[in-house]
């Protein structure tokens, strides 16, 4: 088991791209930690730097109080699962799982036993003599995991291990991974670009953008209180409603309609502040007659989610989404209210949550962040 500490870790590629930028991070013993971000945000580079496959430009990687920054990957006692699984095509499942043990000079009988144990844990017992080419995607993924756990490393690194599986299998494999990690309790760093994976798996997660951590919190916190427009627009399988607003006389003015200020934001804003109002579709309610604190519009699209519908409501140049139990015919006039406890206000200039410290310079989320959200809609 291990604690991982990163101290102002920086990775700059020749050519000037800074993939990881002065990053500080502490990952607790036994924690399932997810690194989440869009492609190119530096999450995979960060993982590879922890593994030792990339050399840090400056800063330190510390595992259990030992500075491993200059150690080769093999001396760091880690297990890694690659996105393409990297199973050796010329070896059987058994030899694949046993290869790290062979490198570690475990004798033949012992490593056969350990490989068989690991394979048994992952329901691969029947497949030991097969070659990777004869396995399904899910089986290959499990072999890759078995290979990483068989030699009992103190730290697991996962590089988007589920992204090559089809959707149904992915959910299954996700549950499986979470249970496995809970059982063996090894500290795990998990890289993904899929926010639902990070939310489902992690004990704690870091949302990354441009080589920096934008938010470091539990999945619940990241989901309920994204601390910037970037995180708000990135998290959630249904995009958050993000609407341009202005503070006027202790209330919000959104395209001419009045909404009361969310209670915990009220003290941080003054009249004339230009803000972005954020609320998730799950916390929106539709009314079929005028009510206070509502935005008016017409139903434009209704999408079935399963036991509810996602309705897109348009009006006064705004577009909102709301989850409703019943579908409504297109063109129906509706009034949308938002659960006040779950509404957030962001500063329009730097994208930070109101009341949070300002983000300066190039770290600030630029003004196009709301438009990023708009583009996803």
């Amino acid at each position, binding site marked *: 088991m291990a604690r991982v500490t990163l101290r102002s870790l920086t990775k700059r590629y020749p050519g000037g791209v800074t993939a990881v930028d002065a990053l500080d991070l502490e990952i607790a013993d036994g924690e399932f930690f997810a690194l989440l971000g869009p492609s190119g945000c530096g999450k995979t580079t960060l993982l590879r730097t922890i*593994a*030792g*496959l990339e050399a840090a430009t400056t800063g330190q990687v510390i595992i259990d109080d030992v500075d491993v920054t200059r150690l*080769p*990957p*093999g*001396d760091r006692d*880690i*297990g*890694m699962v*690659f*996105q*393409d699984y*990297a199973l*050796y*095509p*010329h070896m059987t499942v058994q030899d694949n799982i046993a*290869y*790290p043990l062979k*490198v*570690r000079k475990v004798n033949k009988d012992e490593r056969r036993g350990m490989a068989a144990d690991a394979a048994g844990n992952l329901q691969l017992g029947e497949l030991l003599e097969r070659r990777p080419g004869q396995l399904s995607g899910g089986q290959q993924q499990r072999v890759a995991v078995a*290979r990483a756990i068989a*030699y009992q490393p103190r730290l697991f690194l996962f590089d988007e291990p589920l992204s090559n599986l089809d959707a149904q299998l992915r959910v299954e494999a996700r549950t499986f991974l979470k249970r496995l990690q809970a059982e063996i309790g090894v500290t795990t760093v998990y890289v993904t670009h899929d926010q639902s994976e990070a939310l489902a798996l992690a004990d704690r997660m870091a949302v990354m953008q441009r080589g920096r951590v934008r938010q470091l919190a539990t999945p619940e916190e990241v989901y309920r209180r994204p601390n910037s427009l970037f995180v708000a627009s990135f998290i959630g399988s249904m995009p958050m409603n993000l609407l341009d607003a202005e503070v006027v006389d202790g209330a919000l003015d959104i395209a001419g309609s009045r909404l009361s200020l969310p209670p915990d934001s009220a003290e941080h804003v003054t009249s004339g502040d230009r803000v972005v109002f954020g609320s998730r579709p799950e916390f929106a309610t539709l009314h079929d007659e005028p009510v206070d604190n509502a935005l008016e519009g017409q139903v434009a699209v209704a999408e079935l989610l399963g036991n509810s519908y996602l309705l897109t409501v348009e009006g006064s140049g705004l577009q909102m989404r709301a989850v409703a139990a019943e579908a409504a015919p297109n063109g129906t006039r509706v009034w949308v209210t938002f659960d006040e406890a779950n509404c957030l206000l962001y500063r329009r200039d730097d994208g930070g949550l109101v009341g949070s410290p300002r983000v300066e310079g190039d770290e600030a989320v630029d003004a196009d962040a709301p438009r990023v959200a708009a583009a996803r809609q």
Partner: protein
Amino acid sequence: MTAAGAAVAPGNSRRVVKSVLTRIGFYVMVLLLGVFFALPMLWLLAAPFDRTPTLAAGVPDFTFDNFVRVFENPFVLPSLRNSLILALATMVLVVTAAALCAYALSRVHLPGRDILLYVLLLFSAVVSGTAAMVPLFLLIFEIGLINTHTGVVLVLAGGLMPAGIFILKDFMDSTPASYEESARVAGASALQTLRDIVVPVVRPGLAVIAVWTVVQVWGDFLIPFILLRDPELAPAAVVMFNFYTEGGQANLPLISAYSFLYSVPVVVMYLFVNRRYGFRFYGGIKR
């Protein structure tokens, strides 16, 4: 023509006739070309077994006498052995060195790497060719390797290396780097990774280069002809050049039987490797 055919407009039927004639012309030409290239092969199959071989290919007056006479010649067996030594030594050298070079070039991003490869490839045709005959002779003479198999092997390997590196690099490039990375994470050293992971994965590529090298060396005449003085060291291709009758005529019974023996190993090897590994010259395309 059927009733439907009669309804076809005159312009149309002319087009049909034209396309049929084009077809016929095409096949006649292909046939002539095929016969032209097949004749020497037929000769090679027929002449060795003919009591009185001529330059014509025909049904032989069957006999094994030609082979008996070949084996009576004192140079035949040593020359085949020499060919084998040269081919195998060059093959080992080329496969080993080209694999290491190709691996390094594939994994390390050297500035100007691709240009280097293309220039090498360009010059490799010159190195073992006629153009470099005199400088090569002088070079090998100066370093004291004239009239040795070592000299021939070095020159041939030098000529074949660039193309070997080029083809093998393609195989190496198509092997995902994550294979090696996962071995490194597991703690394998560079040499272990090469031995346990990289070499087995690119084995078809190595087989291609090995066979290709053997065939190239087996068939090479010029380099051993220039660099070897002693007839006892000469490989098969050079020895055959000396098969004349006392009258200065080409000794056809001897040449035909010897040519047959000379071709067999290459064909057998090709069949064996093709069955075992299959030929994949297109390393970049995924299976």
